[in-house]
């Protein structure tokens, strides 16, 4: 027991060293992880940190520009925009992470099957996925949410469904390349079952390129969820959510109250940027060849 726990410690410290070396090597990755950390903290602790209740209305202070008291100003109902932007982080991140997780799992599964066994299964799965990709994806997501009902879960499902083909195709290609690699033959010689070969030997080797896709997709999923809310699907007011806030604030830009749309829009942009910058770093973390 003592020996195995010390081995685990070594493994952990190895991973931490690897992580630190990657952060040191690339300042952009470092910045991305820093921003990710910031968003995670605000997502987890947001409601306890903000100065005002995001739902509390106060007609007396409606539409005030940014000030010391209200950093991002107040909206037409007198709610504090700063509190609303921060509290919305949890919802937006949850939607995107769950959506990406679902599409990652389903996409990987389908792609691995298609790539490994090939033949009619490959043709069948690939054509279905092609069909999904042939739709304008945002319109498809709109259709799914409209058909299933206007809830947060359905935004997650819709976002997941439209992303599945990208994962499936990527995994399929990566598995296909490695199917005939000699380390796979060696695994067969070592008595691994087909399932074990797929799950333990082939699939983990597809992770580095998948991580780039995951990080890009996280940003994209946030945009997608915000986009759906913007056009009035999914999240409903008064729930604080960046997409709705931008949609509501957009009406006030003409009359000069720019802060209503700008700050949630800015947070949205920063979140997407964070995930996009994260890609290279995540790939390097999952690539054993980067380990010194």
């Amino acid at each position, binding site marked *: 027991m003592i020996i195995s726990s010390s081995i685990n410690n070594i493994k952990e410290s190895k991973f931490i060293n690897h992580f630190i070396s990657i952060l040191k*090597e690339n300042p952009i990755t470092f910045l991305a992880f820093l921003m990710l950390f910031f968003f995670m903290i605000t997502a987890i602790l947001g409601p306890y940190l903000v100065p005002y209740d995001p739902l509390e209305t106060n007609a007396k202070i409606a539409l005030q520009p940014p000030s010391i008291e209200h950093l991002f100003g107040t909206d037409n109902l007198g709610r504090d925009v700063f509190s609303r932007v921060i509290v919305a982080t949890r919802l937006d991140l949850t939607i995107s992470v769950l959506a990406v997780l679902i599409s990652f799992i389903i996409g990987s599964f389908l792609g691995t099957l298609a790539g490994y066994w090939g033949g009619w299964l490959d043709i069948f799965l690939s054509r279905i996925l092609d069909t999904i990709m042939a739709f304008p994806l945002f319109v498809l997501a709109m259709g799914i949410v409209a058909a299933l009902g206007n809830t947060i879960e359905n935004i997650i499902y819709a976002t997941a469904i439209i992303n599945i083909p990208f994962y499936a195709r990527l995994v399929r290609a990566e598995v296909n390349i490695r199917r005939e*690699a*000699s*380390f796979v*033959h*060696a*695994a*067969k*010689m*070592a*008595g*691994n*079952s*087909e399932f*074990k070969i797929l799950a333990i*030997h082939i699939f*983990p*080797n597809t992770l580095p390129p998948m991580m780039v896709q995951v990080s890009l997709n996280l940003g994209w999923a946030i945009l997608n969820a915000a986009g759906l809310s913007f056009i009035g699907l999914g999240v409903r007011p008064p729930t604080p959510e960046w997409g709705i806030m931008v949609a509501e604030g957009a009406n006030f830009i003409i009359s000069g109250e720019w802060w209503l749309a700008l700050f949630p829009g800015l947070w949205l942009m920063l979140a997407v940027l964070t995930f996009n910058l994260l890609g290279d770093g995540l790939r390097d973390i999952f690539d*054993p*060849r980067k*380990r010194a």
Partner: protein
Amino acid sequence: MLSVQNLNVKFNTRKGLVEAVRDISFNLKKGEILGIVGESGSGKSVTSYALMRILDNTGLIRANKMIYSGIDLDNASEKLMMDIRGREVSMIFQNPRTSLNPIRKIGVQIEDVLRRHSRATRYNAKQKAIEALRAVKIKDPENRYYSYPYQLSGGMCQRVVCAIALACDPKLLIADEPTTGLDITTQKAVMDLIKDLILSRNMSSIFITHDLGLASEYCDRIIVMKDGSIVEKGVTKNIFTYPKHPYTQKLVNATPRPEKNIRSLLPPQVKNHEVKHVIQDHTILEVKNLSKLYKGQFGSIQAVKSISFKIKKGECVGLVGESGCGKSTTSAILSRLIDASEGQIFFDKKDISMLPSKNFSKNPIRSHIQMVFQDPTESLNPRYTAKQSISDPLKNLTNMNNDEINTKVIEASNLVGLPLNLLDRLPHQLSGGQKARVGIARAIALSPKLLILDEPTASLDVSIQAVILNLLVDLRAKLGMSYLFVSHDLNVVQLLCDYIIVMKEGVIIEQGKSNQIISNPKESYTRLLLEASPKPPKLPNVP
């Protein structure tokens, strides 16, 4: 004609400056063929890239003098270099397939060079391209002009690369491992062609190779490089018969050739006594009328046609042939990775050809037949440490607990001479030879009765090849395994094997005792294979 003095090449990497070439100097006379010989990482290719000035941006070239017929290559403008490349100095690269553009016709690719250097106009370019193809002895050049690289064999592709390199009558040809990956007979044909062309056009050439035997057959003078420096240079015959530097001696020693035995490949200080292996009368594997038919979109291919042979316990059988002869298919069938179309395989008197390869991993015989793969890098899971790789078969095929597996892994690592502190490393942190040892340790961990070796040393340097071959000999004697050694190199096969099978186009054309096949081959094809392998000058005193 070419004079290089104190050439240094450094690379700017993330881990600081790396010196790839250190202070090398040499001269090349007109009409001379100079061989640069060294193992991987010796800086031989970088030297040639520096001469052509085609290094990456991170490569820094510093030389006191680098003059080609009066032109200072170090300080010449990029525009001048573009004129020189192809017209004055041209180059043949390592892999013919990747040095041709896959989506353009080969004739057009030759025309490009001709027209770039104004050797042809739009009107006569095609005719000149066809002439260039004819010069490299490509049959039916008028029709081949329209071929794409994928339609040609490896040897043909390398001829086309030669045609491109020689189209503008350069004065100097740099050939960077031009025959790596080609069959031994193709290698001879391509090398003979290059030598003929160089002689008939009165050109000079720099021939870069890791194969000292090949260099000694075609070069006038040889430079031996190690770790970026020149360790020895001189006339070919002297280098080979009286090597002065210990490294050259090691290389000369490690080069397999007919009069050597397996122990004499190693340097004298590490040589220990060869343990005699015993061949028993018990037949471990018998193959009867084995055939394999691949069904494809464009008709089926008979890869293996009704072959039969036997392997006795403790025996090493060599399976020799050129690429496409069916030897890899045969080894894949015997290792039960694929199913045969017809025929029987008896392993220890049991017919295993009936068991489908799909479920063979569950069969107890799985652990008795193991394989060492051709490319040690590709055959290891990049995410597995050496220890995980070696223990994988033990976990799947035995009932050992963790402690027993650990003991067994250490035992196997000791047997193959893999230092135990390397067990926690991932494949990319190991050298080629170490990876080869991991691959062998994984295969022998189960104490198999039959080990199939699929060109296990093809991608290794000669000095490491010598060590690995000796390791295999020792292991066989210690563990009493039988080997099926698949290779295209008769020089290597005769060192290790008791019995040789020669295959051509899916058929066994000759089989017999090793010394009999080598000294007195019956078939003309076997003789051709024997003659094609490079013959370095004989050593005056075989140690």
